């Protein structure tokens, strides 16, 4: 055995933690090595010194205080526990946890459902309006088609009707264009480009199409309020007899 190894074993040797063969080897080494023998003596002295660390005498009064304190706390806890048992006789922490989690999930799901309904109101766009009413729109190249007809031709199952249809997803009836507006002059808007983003969708938003009573009877005034409060589209058209294409 080398001294380095012995130095590591001595702390265990002094406490009797070595296996007998190892302890024998160590003792044999100590007989021939003064340095290791000295180290062993120092460890032995330190070990003896540590063992003098006796616990001071605790008097009976301190033990009695300890017991009284423990028992009174237990009694207090049991009283509190019995009150909870009276309130919840089948108290089971796991059951309570499961029920709480289920309730939390249900409330979250309900909140999400309500929130989704609130954030998705039907938007009344010019395109929608035209599509719903079936009034012809100008495509910009001189042709005039109705959006409803477009839909019919593309899907084959559109139900282009008059002004009493509902907006999709809406429970309130769509505001119908006044009869005057439908009958006189008609609406002819440039065909809206396809909506590609929320900004465009918002800019399309209009409020209503209102005839104004104060206008001269021979003119029809239609105002469209866009999402931008500074932009309002005012349409003036003479009240003429409705053409065939307008009333379809």
């Amino acid at each position, binding site marked *: 055995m080398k001294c380095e190894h012995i130095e*590591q074993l001595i*702390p*265990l040797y*002094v*406490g009797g*933690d070595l296996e007998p063969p190892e302890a024998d080897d160590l003792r044999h080494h100590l007989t021939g090595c003064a340095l290791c023998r000295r180290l062993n003596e*120092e*460890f032995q*002295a*330190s*070990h003896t*010194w*540590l*063992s*003098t*660390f*006796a*616990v*001071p005498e*605790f008097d009976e009064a*301190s*033990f009695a*205080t*300890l*017991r009284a*304190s*423990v*028992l009174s*706390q*237990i*009694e207090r806890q*049991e009283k509190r526990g019995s009150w909870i048992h009276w309130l919840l006789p089948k108290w089971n*922490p796991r059951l309570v946890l499961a029920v709480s989690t289920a309730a939390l999930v249900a409330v979250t799901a309900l909140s999400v459902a309500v929130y989704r309904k609130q954030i998705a109101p039907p938007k009344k766009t010019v395109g929608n309006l035209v599509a719903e009413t079936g009034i012809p729109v100008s495509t910009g190249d001189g042709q005039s088609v109705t959006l409803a007809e477009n839909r019919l031709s593309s899907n084959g199952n559109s139900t282009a009707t008059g002004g009493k249809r509902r907006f999709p997803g809406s429970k309130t009836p769509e505001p119908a264009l006044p009869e005057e507006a439908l009958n006189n002059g008609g609406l002819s808007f440039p065909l809206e480009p396809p909506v590609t983003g929320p900004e465009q969708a918002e800019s399309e938003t209009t409020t209503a199409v209102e005839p104004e009573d104060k206008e001269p009877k021979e003119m029809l005034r239609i105002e469209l309020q866009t999402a931008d409060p500074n932009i309002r589209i005012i349409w003036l058209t003479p009240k003429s007899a409705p053409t065939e294409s307008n009333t379809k």
Partner: protein
Amino acid sequence: MEWNNAALMADQLRFDDRTVTPATEPRSFNSPIVALVMRARTGDLSAFDQLIIAHQQRVIGIAWRMLGNQDDAQDAAQETFLRVYKHLNGFDTKQDFSGWLYRITVNVCHDLARKRGRGNPVSLDAEREAGNFAEPVSPHNTESSAMHAQERAIIARALATLSEKERAAIVLRDLEGLTTEEVAGILGSTPTTVRSQVSSARAKIKTFRDRWLKRSVQNRER
């Protein structure tokens, strides 16, 4: 090793206070301690009082050696017995009650030491000024008693330099006189680990003592 399972259970209790294993009927009632445990489980506080009486000296001794002062030791002992009562249903009566109890005691001492910020050892002078290690000196307690108190304070200081695990290992092994296997069972580790911790602790204590002796000699020469 009888304490292994009890120690593991105590460890489980440490991390999940709600753990309650179904109370199993003990195979034998040979031990009067087991009989007391069974009675205490039914809410018999006088039986639990007897359990405390049977173990209070040992529990408070371990706590005192782990924490270094009487007030903390008493607080730790109180908390230990409260935890024992709380988890009494989780104790397997086939296991050794003392091992389980000491495991809880060590855990309580660790918790208390962390709570009170005892990680870093305080200077001996500060401790002496605070009276943490001073003993009341009666007229009969003469110089030897004072010296003994000082010696005790220095050993407490030496123990304070150890890590939590080393301190627990050396207190249980060298001061409480438990075997390495028993200590391993209480601390929830292996005998090899305990041996290593004890060896390291003994070396540190020796180094501390050597330094202290050297300083004492220097002080005397001045």
